[in-house]
């Protein structure tokens, strides 16, 4: 049996990379910080806009700021003990290794599918031992019973794998929050299971 103090202690030793600080990344980061994660490495090049506020963890007075710096401010207000390493860069094959190769786990939090594919392929080929949690399919509203978690080895997929963002099917808060928090839950579950397994084998 483990209590919340033990969970915080387990998580406080972990480093999680978050690729993107939009709807998925900002919400996933806030949940992980609330759980007591030790360190987050967050990268994004974008700026907070008013349109982002329908689902992303930013505030009206932060519009115009770089997302990673605004997010660092918001996360620090929740838990000043979490080490936050933020990078105002566009993530690509040239810097993924530098950003994420030392992480215990990586969360994919891009918006466009080609970016998701680039990150997945790069991580699976170059860092197959680092568990990767991706999100696919959370546009629109309703039907949340179709949102699910799948696993293939070290790759975890959260979402319904079908609802694509479009003009008439925008990403909005509830389903984006559901999927980003599923990603955070996969991270928490993974580290707790790893702890329980190690505790069991060391007996």
């Amino acid at each position, binding site marked *: 049996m483990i209590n919340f103090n033990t969970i915080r202690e387990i998580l406080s030793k972990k480093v999680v990379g978050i690729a993107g600080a939009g709807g998925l990344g900002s919400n996933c980061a806030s949940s992980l910080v609330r759980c007591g994660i030790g360190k987050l490495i967050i990268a994004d090049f974008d700026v907070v806009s008013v349109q982002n506020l329908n689902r992303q963890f930013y505030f009206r007075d932060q519009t115009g700021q770089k997302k990673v710096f605004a997010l660092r401010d918001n996360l620090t207000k929740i838990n000043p003990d979490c080490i936050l390493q933020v990078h105002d860069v566009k993530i690509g094959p040239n810097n993924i290794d530098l950003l994420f190769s030392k992480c215990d786990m990586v969360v994919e939090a891009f918006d466009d599918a080609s970016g998701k594919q680039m990150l*997945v392929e790069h991580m699976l080929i170059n860092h197959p031992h680092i568990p990767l949690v991706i999100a696919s*399919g959370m546009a629109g509203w309703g039907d949340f019973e179709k949102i699910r978690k799948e696993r293939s080895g070290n790759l975890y997929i959260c979402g319904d794998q079908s*609802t694509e963002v479009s003009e008439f099917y925008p990403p909005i808060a509830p389903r984006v929050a559901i999927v980003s928090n599923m990603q955070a839950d996969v991270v928490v579950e993974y580290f707790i299971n790893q702890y329980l397994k190690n505790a069991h084998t060391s007996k």
Partner: protein
Amino acid sequence: MRILLNNREEHFNANSLTIKEIMDIKSFHFKMLVVRLNDNLVKRELYGETVVTDGDDLKIIHLVSGG
């Protein structure tokens, strides 16, 4: 052959099929995919020559935009 396709058992009337053939039969036509055969990544350019046989575990994951 019987394989696991996205965690469900599927039966095909052939001893082996390429990933491309399975995608055509099952109508997987999304642009962005991640394909894993027995938990190994299969790159897009190899879909046509990677052969799936009885007992294999094939995952075809759709990547759709949004976040």
